Structures are given as C-alpha cells and as structure tokens.
C-alpha cells in the first residue's frame, strides 16, 4: 500500500513538472491617481487616500488557459490513437482524459512508455480519430434515396453518393457497396422499402447504412403524398436476403425530406 502510494506520489511529482502555472488569485491593478514624484534626497511624499484607488487591468482568474499536452494511453474516439501527444483544453483533458485514465501527462518517460509497439502498429484497428464517429452517425440515420417515378433506373453507387451529399455526408463512389441484387425501378411497390448498403471508411471501418427508396416526379401533381416524418416509421425490407442484415429500426434522426 505504502509502496503504491510512494509510486503514485513519484508520478505526481513528475507530472508536476508540466504544471508550472501560477496560482490564479492574481489581479493586476493600476493606480487611478499616480502619486507625485518626490524631490531628490528627500523622503517620498505621504500617500493620500485617493492614491489607494485602483483600476483593474487584468483578472487572471477569467483568463483563457492555454491548452494542455497529454499522452494517450489508448485509442480515444475523436481525440487520437495510443501514444499520440495531443493538445486540448485543460478542463477537457482533466475530466475526459486524465480522470478516466485514458491519458497521462506528457513527460519523456510517458512518451516512451505509451508509444506504440511494432506489434500494435501492424494491427491497425482505427484508421483515424474521427472514423468511429462517422460510423456511428452513418448507422444512426435513414438515408432517403430519391429516385424518379417516371424514368427507368437501376440503382448505382453514385445515386447513394449524391443522396448522402444532400444529407451532409461526403464520400467517394468507391466506398459504397450496394447489395448484390439489382434494384430497379420505377416500382411503386418499392416505395419506402428499406435496404442497407455498406460504406467503407479509409478502406478499414465499415458502416451499414439504412436506405429507403422514395419516388419523385418532376411534375408536382404527379408526386406521391408526403408522409410526415417517414423516417421514424418502421419499414419493410426491400430485399429478402437483407432481412438479417437490417437491424430493427429505432427512433432515428431525420435526414433528407
């Protein structure tokens, strides 16, 4: 127990090197009325009451604190990979990284200790800090794929790409993998039916994206009636095989109307 304590203390002391910040009780003040200069070889004049009126120049308590640098112990979503030295806001660092034990203070020892080993480097699990967030967001939406009601079409990856761009997601055509079956139209039996396609991020992470087909006509009078918040309603699967793939729909975020 005592040994443990000692070691933690040692680490604390090591960490303390980084924390060369002043105690934030300092207020920088300025005299409102400057006292007059005194004569040479004479005592300084007596200060009057007014000479003790001050003006606030700076309150160090409300000053923006500089970023802190820490070494990550593991992969943290939205921050970085193991062994990365990241610079973040101090409160975020303390509450979200240091307290949960995801990172330590940046010291030469810590950098060496938590740097990635060769084995870890070869076994890549995450392509980037934000890929997982993109996966989560892609899986949480229901993408509306708007296809024409009058012209014949076969669903292609670029249709999904354009629909994703309208929904605020940017991706390349190569990243999209459609179901193996051909999806053809226009077919009003396919209206609002769900299928899923796979989006590959940085050729590593994969996200299953739920898509629903909607028919749209250029002529306003030919258009289908609008269903209020259709993305929240349960939908039937479009393809037989994708029944297993498609998870039961929860309450989803709105995408494209």
């Amino acid at each position, binding site marked *: 127990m005592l040994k443990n304590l000692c070691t933690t203390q040692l680490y604390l002391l090591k960490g303390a090197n980084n924390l060369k910040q002043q105690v934030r009780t300092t207020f920088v003040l300025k005299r409102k009325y400057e006292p007059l200069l005194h004569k040479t070889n004479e005592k300084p004049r007596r200060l009057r009451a007014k000479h003790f009126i001050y003006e606030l120049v700076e309150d160090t308590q409300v000053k923006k604190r500089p970023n802190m640098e820490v070494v990550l112990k593991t992969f943290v979503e939205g921050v970085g990979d193991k062994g990365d030295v990241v610079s973040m806001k101090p409160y975020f660092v303390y509450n979200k990284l240091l307290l949960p034990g995801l990172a330590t203070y940046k010291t030469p020892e810590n950098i060496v200790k938590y740097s990635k080993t060769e084995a870890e480097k070869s076994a890549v699990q995450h392509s980037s800090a934000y890929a997982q967030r993109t996966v989560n967001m892609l899986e949480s939406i229901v993408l509306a794929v708007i296809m024409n009601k009058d012209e014949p079409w076969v669903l292609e990856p670029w249709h999904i790409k354009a629909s994703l761009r309208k929904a605020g997601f940017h991706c390349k055509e190569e990243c999209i993998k459609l179901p193996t079956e051909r999806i053809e139209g226009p077919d009003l039996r396919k209206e609002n039916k769900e299928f899923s396609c796979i*989006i590959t991020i940085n050729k590593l992470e994969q996200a299953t994206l739920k898509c629903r087909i909607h028919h749209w006509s250029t002529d306003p009078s030919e258009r289908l009636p609008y269903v209020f918040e259709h993305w929240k309603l349960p939908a039937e699967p479009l393809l037989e095989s994708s029944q297993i793939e498609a998870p039961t729909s929860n309450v989803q975020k709105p995408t494209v109307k």
Partner: protein
Amino acid sequence: MLTLISTMRALAVRQQSGEALRCLHLTAVTEAARKGTREKARKKKVKVEVKKVGFIPHNQRDKKINVKRADKHVDDSWKQVPKDDVYVGRYYRWPVYTVAEAIQCHRETHHPTMYNVPNASLNVEIELNMQGEKATRFVDNFQRMAMIPHKFDHGEERKIIVFTKGNEEIVEAREAGATLVGGVELIKDITAGELLLSDYQFIIAHPNILPELVALRGLMKRKFPNPKSETLGVNLAEMVVKFSNGISYSATKDEYQQNFGLIKANVGTLDMDAQHLEENIRFLLQDVNSMRPKRDGRFITRVLLKSAPSSEQLKIDPFVYIPEFYDKTAAKVSREAKKEAEPEPQSKEAAAASN
C-alpha cells in the same frame, strides 16, 4: 486743502459705489416670477402621457430592435480540414469544388433517374463584403449587365432601341439583334408621341447622333446613353449583343447587415458544356470585381453554385478567375487605360456637337 478735496472725492466715489451696490442687491432676484410668467411656463410644459402598451405577439413586434442577428459572412476556417475519405460535413470546412466538379454534382442530382431536370438553370450566388473605403461607408446597391461569351435563354424579354445616323451602322445594329434602329426620324416619332420609350428596356446610341438626342434627355432620364454605363459608343453591334445576351444582375445589401451584399444570377443551364458555363462564370465574376472599392481585403467573399429543385449549395473558389486582394498598381494601370480610351468618344461628341 488738496488732501481734503481728495478725501471728499473719495467719499463721494464711495458713496456712489455704495448706492450702486445697494441697487444691485435690491433687484428682484429672489422674488418669485410674475403670475403671467408662471402661466406661460405651465402652458409650455407638454404633458407626457405614458401610454400603456398591451401584449404584442412576438411575430408582430418590431423586428429592428433588440434582435441579435448572426453575422451573414460565414467563416468556417476554424473548423478542421477533413482527412478521411468519408466524413460528416458539419464537423469540417465546406468542401471547395472546381466549377467542373460542382456542375458534375448538380448533373448527378438532376439526372433523369433522380430529379429528371437535366436542363435546369445553374444559379450563382455571390456574397460580397460591401464595406467601402472607410469602415462606416458602404458600397451602394448596383445593377449591371455582364457580357458573356456563351449565350443562353435567360427567359427575359429585352427590347433594345438604337439611335445612329450612319446607314452602315443601322444595318450592323439590326443584324446584331436590336429591336428598333433609327436616326433622326425616330427621335421625331418619339417627340411626336407615336413611339413610347418605356417599351424599351435598353437605349443605345452612337456618338454621331448625340446633339439631336439631347432633346430626349427629359424623357429618357437615367436611361440616357452615356459611356459610363456603356450605352454610348462606336461599336454598336458589340453593345447590342451585350445587352441582348448578357447576364443582368443586381447586388443588394442586406436589410440588417449593411456590409453583406448578395448577387443572385443565372449563368446558364446544366445541359450546356461545362467549359462554357465556366467561361460565363468567369466573365460574371470579372464584371462584379470591377465594382470593387479601393480598399484592402476581399470584396467577393463566397461563391455558391445552386440549381433548383435540389437544395445543394456547392462552394467554388472565385479567386481562380479574379485577383483576391486589391492591387493598387493594377487599379492605377486600368484607370490610366480608361483615361486614354475615354477622350476618343468625347472628342467625337464634341466634333458632332460642332457640326
């Protein structure tokens, strides 16, 4: 004796001054004002009645007061630059497309298999920083006509009337597509009231007819041909083509934010050649940039390409086509060039006037 007189005099003087003093103190300084004066003052006072204001619904309140509005100049430079090949747009800077890419994106959404509007018009939204040379001065709203190399159907009816004396020029202007071309006889028709000038949106004139045209100055008012708006010149055919095919656009300042100006213009249709559309955009941007105030910093802040019915707005980089910042030397050169070019028509006008 002398001393006696002097003391007497002093006494007399003192006495006088004493009287004067007494007079001063006896004036009615502390006494209250006369009755009539009080009445007058009371009448002068206007009773301020405090009107009780009942509840006003929020949508009917005056919108000009106490409303904090977001700055319309969007700056997303604090956001990250995406590194992944798939990313959520809202966490990153807007992607900047080349014109060709943006047109391709719009063509995808307007493809027959999706929206099925392949001939939709391509709209450009140009956002301007309307601040003038001083921080408190702003560029006025302006309306202009940009000449474009590749014409398209802009859907507007533009009637052009051309005034000139020379027979060759009449033929030339008519071939270029002017609605009505004529000389002195046309002016007579207008003064007689047989022809209405208000039917024509654009009035173009050759300097040789200017002395006769002065009679119509009152009727034309602001439409009176002048070299500044490029309605008075020697090259009639070019001007007619410009006014019949050009992009007419107007920059309007925001109602609440004086330094934010917006231009909405149509530059063509999506089924036109992408390079032709790019050329049109280039000419439009160069024309807008000619209105730039003489100050540092950007004038055009952002350019978006839009195409209904899709709501997509694709940002393009305008500084491929125009200089980003104010170049003093370039402005000087262009001004000198203008000065050199201007005396020509003026001298011709003078010659015409003397004739």
